[in-house]
């Protein structure tokens, strides 16, 4: 019996090669797209699921709130929480913490930059790290030991054993020698815990660092807790507000503790940290969006399949009728056609898997990830693929199977013409569905790309070209380094600041307006007097800051004390917010400024700078106050001559080696920082564009197939029309119109859907493009043109055919 089904199915496929090719190709492309997207989404959702007892491991995080300001969501937890957890929650089995910090290493005369995890002694035991060298029990016990990952050990020591070898680490309190006490397996790519270089934590390394506190002011360490199996995490979470109430100091001293800010504690499973944690790298919403698009593409492909099969019902109806006359029961007919479509779907699946295999390297390169699909070693994945194929086959074949099961043989066996069998309307609906999705995707892709281009072309207010930002210049040699750089003919300007554009400022200052009736929040940015020059930000009124004493708020060599009074610069928006009618009006204004909570400065505005983007271009420009604080010059921005980039970079590196022989030279490129802000959106645009092309391609394939069958079916009608005097163009027009209707209707559905989505999406941008009507109309035209181009060939062929041929056989 099955042999017979398969024979019929295969011979049918071979007889109608075009139909089969379109059907399988469409489905294969749809499946391939679906599999590729699902692989990525699944990968993103399966981070950190590999730890033993991972379901009991949680990350504890802190979120800082200060009235009227943006929350600071830290992936870290404050130090006191460790003991609080151990004391308050008996479910807590263990707590481990680490501080991630970039350190310079010296090894055999070479210097390396390395991200080091200064971890609690139980780190290796907590995560159950597997040791390749060394003793897991003692490796972290010795404060001078370091535990490397296999790849780090290989990087530093090649194939020779690493155990016992010495590495010198340049720390704040001087150089320290460490010896390798263990080598573990590499951390997994899909983990938020990248333990390449573990050093037992010691607070002495961080003594005197402004940001390192062991109280509630600053969360510096990542903290994981392991709860007893079956512990109720929600019950623990419910106690967090009470814990903050009880333990957070209430500002009885001058150290700004808990006075006008608060902390919220949160705790999430380690497996959710990648997507839902504070400062998460992934974006679950975007992933669901991708998955949605993947399903839409698969839907288009299935609809295609359904549509093409329906078009062929007339042909196969005779076979079904004969089978029924010969005794086939309904169930057997259903079996046959479901089997057939499952077979087709499985063939398409095999093609799709091949496509995925070919596409994966490019896909990985694009997404900057390392997805793979090893069906032989992942039987579950193989099984899922199989289910997918069978599911798609069932979905796509069920309608046809049911239709045939209900078919009355009497209706078919006595008519010699292939009738439409009432499936025509359904087929039109299916084409409408396909094109609705395609058109909506087209419109959305257009606007996403337009918005990205718009944002990239946005005037940032400063010149980002030919700038590099050198890290770690917050020290006494900074001035020497600057002078040395300016000696180079290739370097045109050098400026200093605590942070640089695109990174935003975390300093918020409350300032009373000139009317005195309200307060406004203004971002503070410690800069050097040279900051505006290097970024080429013009002054609208007054003058720029200078090295003069009156322009300096804090000076090196004065024990880090702020002065009582000083000159400052504001941007145009700050001047406006403060209540000045024009930038000029602000010059000379004196007011009291809280540089930090307990430091008050009598500030005088000496200059008003043009507005520029300091945060992401996604956000609005914020009002800003700029002042000279020599203790907060972490970044040195260098402008070089664009024609001599390499030479300039070489000079910077040489100057660095000279001035900072013990430190690693690292820099960021400003254009890359700017570009990075748009990367997600740009990538979204590219992904959407490719998906859209796929969707259109599959839809067009389906339309072509349909046109072919319609042409077959309507030859007689067209023959009659021609005999009655219709011209070639009349016939072609007739044909084009038939296929234009569903595309036009599809626009009616796609437009509002796309509009609603876009309106929502664009809300996320402070500066956004308008949703004009023109792109919608243009998309409709493009869709029509694609439809026509697809159908035209067939239409011409039919129109040219000799009418007698068509009529004689009736």
């Amino acid at each position, binding site marked *: 019996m099955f042999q017979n089904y398969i024979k019929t199915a295969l011979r049918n496929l071979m*007889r109608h090669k075009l139909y089969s090719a379109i059907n399988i190709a469409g489905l294969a492309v749809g499946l391939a797209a679906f599999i590729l997207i699902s692989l990525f989404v699944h990968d993103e959702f399966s981070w950190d699921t590999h730890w033993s007892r991972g379901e009991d491991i949680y990350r504890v995080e802190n979120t800082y709130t200060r009235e009227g300001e943006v929350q600071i969501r830290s992936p870290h937890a404050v130090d006191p929480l460790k003991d609080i957890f151990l004391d308050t929650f008996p479910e807590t089995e263990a707590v481990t913490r680490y501080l991630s910090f970039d350190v310079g290493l010296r090894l055999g005369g070479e210097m390396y930059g390395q991200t080091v995890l200064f971890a609690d002694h139980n780190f290796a035991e907590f995560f159950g790290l597997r040791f390749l060298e060394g003793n897991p029990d003692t490796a972290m016990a010795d404060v001078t030991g370091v535990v490397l990952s296999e790849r780090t050990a290989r990087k530093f020591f090649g194939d020779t054993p690493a155990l016992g070898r010495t590495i010198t680490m340049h720390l704040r309190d001087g150089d320290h020698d460490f010896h390798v006490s263990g080598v573990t397996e590499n951390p997994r790519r899909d983990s938020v815990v990248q333990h390449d270089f573990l050093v037992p934590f010691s607070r002495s390394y961080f003594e005197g660092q402004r940001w390192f506190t062991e109280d509630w002011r600053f969360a510096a360490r990542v903290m994981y807790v392991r709860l007893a199996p079956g512990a109720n995490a929600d019950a623990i979470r419910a106690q967090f507000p009470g814990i903050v109430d009880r333990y957070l100091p209430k500002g009885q001293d001058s150290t700004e503790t808990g006075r006008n800010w608060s902390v919220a504690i949160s705790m999430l499973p380690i497996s959710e940290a990648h997507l839902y944690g504070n400062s998460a790298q992934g974006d679950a919403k975007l992933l669901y969006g991708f998955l949605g698009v993947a399903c839409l593409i698969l839907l288009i492909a299935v609809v295609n399949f359904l549509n093409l099969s329906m078009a062929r019902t007339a042909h196969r109806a005779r076979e079904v009728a*004969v089978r029924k006359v*010969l*005794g086939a029961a309904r169930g057997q007919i259903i079996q046959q056609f479901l089997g057939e479509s499952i077979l087709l779907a499985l063939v398409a699946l095999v093609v799709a898997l091949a496509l995925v295999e070919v596409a994966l390297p490019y896909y990985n390169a694009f997404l900057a990830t390392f997805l793979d699909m090893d069906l032989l070693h992942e039987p579950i994945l193989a099984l899922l693929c199989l289910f997918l194929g069978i599911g798609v086959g069932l979905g796509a074949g069920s309608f046809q199977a049911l239709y045939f099961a209900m078919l009355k043989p*009497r209706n078919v066996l006595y008519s010699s013409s292939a009738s439409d069998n009432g499936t025509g309307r359904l087929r039109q609906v299916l084409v409408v569905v396909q094109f609705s999705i395609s058109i909506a995707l087209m419109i959305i892709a257009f606007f996403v790309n337009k918005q990205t281009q718009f944002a990239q072309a946005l005037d940032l207010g400063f010149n980002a070209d030919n700038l590099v930002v050198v890290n770690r210049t917050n020290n006494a040699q900074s001035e020497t380094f600057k002078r040395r750089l300016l000696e180079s003919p290739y370097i045109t300007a050098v400026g200093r600041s605590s942070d640089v554009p695109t990174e935003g400022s975390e300093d918020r200052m409350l300032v009373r307006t000139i009317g005195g009736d309200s307060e406004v929040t203004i971002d503070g940015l410690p800069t050097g007097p040279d900051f505006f020059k290097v970024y080429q930000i013009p002054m609208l009124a007054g003058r720029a800051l200078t090295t003069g004493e009156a322009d300096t708020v804090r000076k090196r060599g004065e024990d880090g004390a702020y002065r009582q009074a000083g000159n400052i610069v504001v941007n145009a928006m700050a001047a406006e917010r403060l209540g000045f009618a024009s930038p000029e009006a602000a010059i000379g204004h004196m007011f009291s400024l809280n540089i930090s909570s307990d430091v008050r400065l009598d500030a005088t505005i000496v200059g008003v700078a043009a507005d520029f983007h300091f945060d992401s271009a996604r956000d609005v420009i914020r009002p800003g106050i700029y002042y000279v604080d020599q203790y907060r010059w972490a970044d040195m921005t260098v402008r070089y001559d664009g024609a001599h980039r390499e030479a300039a970079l070489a000079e910077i590196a040489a100057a660095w080696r000279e001035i900072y022989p013990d430190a690693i030279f690292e820099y960021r490129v400003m254009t890359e920082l700017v570009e990075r802000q748009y990367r997600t959106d740009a990538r979204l645009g590219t992904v959407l564009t490719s998906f859209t092309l796929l969707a259109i391609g599959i839809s067009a394939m389906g339309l072509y197939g349909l046109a072919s069958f319609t042409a077959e079916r309507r030859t007689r009608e067209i023959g009659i029309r021609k005999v009655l005097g219709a011209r070639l163009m009349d016939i072609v027009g007739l044909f084009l119109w038939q296929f234009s209707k569903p595309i036009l209707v599809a626009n009616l559905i796609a437009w509002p859907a796309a509009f609603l989505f876009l309106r929502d999406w664009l809300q996320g941008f402070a500066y956004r493009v308008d949703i004009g009507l023109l792109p919608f109309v243009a998309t409709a035209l493009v869709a029509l043109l694609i439809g026509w181009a697809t159908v035209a060939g067939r239409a011409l062929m039919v129109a040219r055919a000799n009418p007698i041929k068509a009529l004689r056989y009736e």
Partner: protein
Amino acid sequence: MLKLHNLSKVYRTDEVETVALNSVNVEIETGEFVAIMGPSGCGKSTLLNIIGMLDSPSSGNYFFMDEDVAGYSEAKLGNIRKQHIGFIFQSFNLIDELTVAENIELALLYHNIPASERRDRVARVMDKVGIAHRAKHMPSQLSGGQQQRVAVARAVVGDQAMILADEPTGNLDSAHGQEVMEMLQALNEEGTTIVMVTHSPAHADYARRTINLFDGHVVTENLRAAV
């Protein structure tokens, strides 16, 4: 074999009501060869369809082997049909994608017969209708007469007691037509009941009895003298 009592068939669309058969009374004995004749649209095919259980009567009784099947479900009718009734059509209705042997075998596929037995029976019946040398050919490679012989083979391969033939010679030239009629006659002589719709008086002569239909009524029944 079968008995139709006061059997009527009415087709209804939204506006029109067409009476295809009007109180028809027909009895066919086992082993008979009956021809049904009449002008186009007189209800011949409807009558044949009801006898073949491809259609149900609007009213009246249909006794098949002493069982009133008039109200049976489609599935039940399908079971009786596949046990007892074979069909031959004017347009052959062979499946284009299957070979001659496979087309014939199709009639056995739905009967739970083991593959080896199916092969034997198909081979035997192909010999009988003289089509064995074309076993592996596709229907499109055969002449009309050969195709109809395949159809006849398919109708009888399951040892059906009754064959319903709807203008079996309508698409054939006279030589091939006669060939098919002789085949049917031979089958009848072996005991198969045959009911045939035809336009050709010459071919109707092969039957022992002719039922004439006009506007849904049985007009006359002629019994031909035994040869």
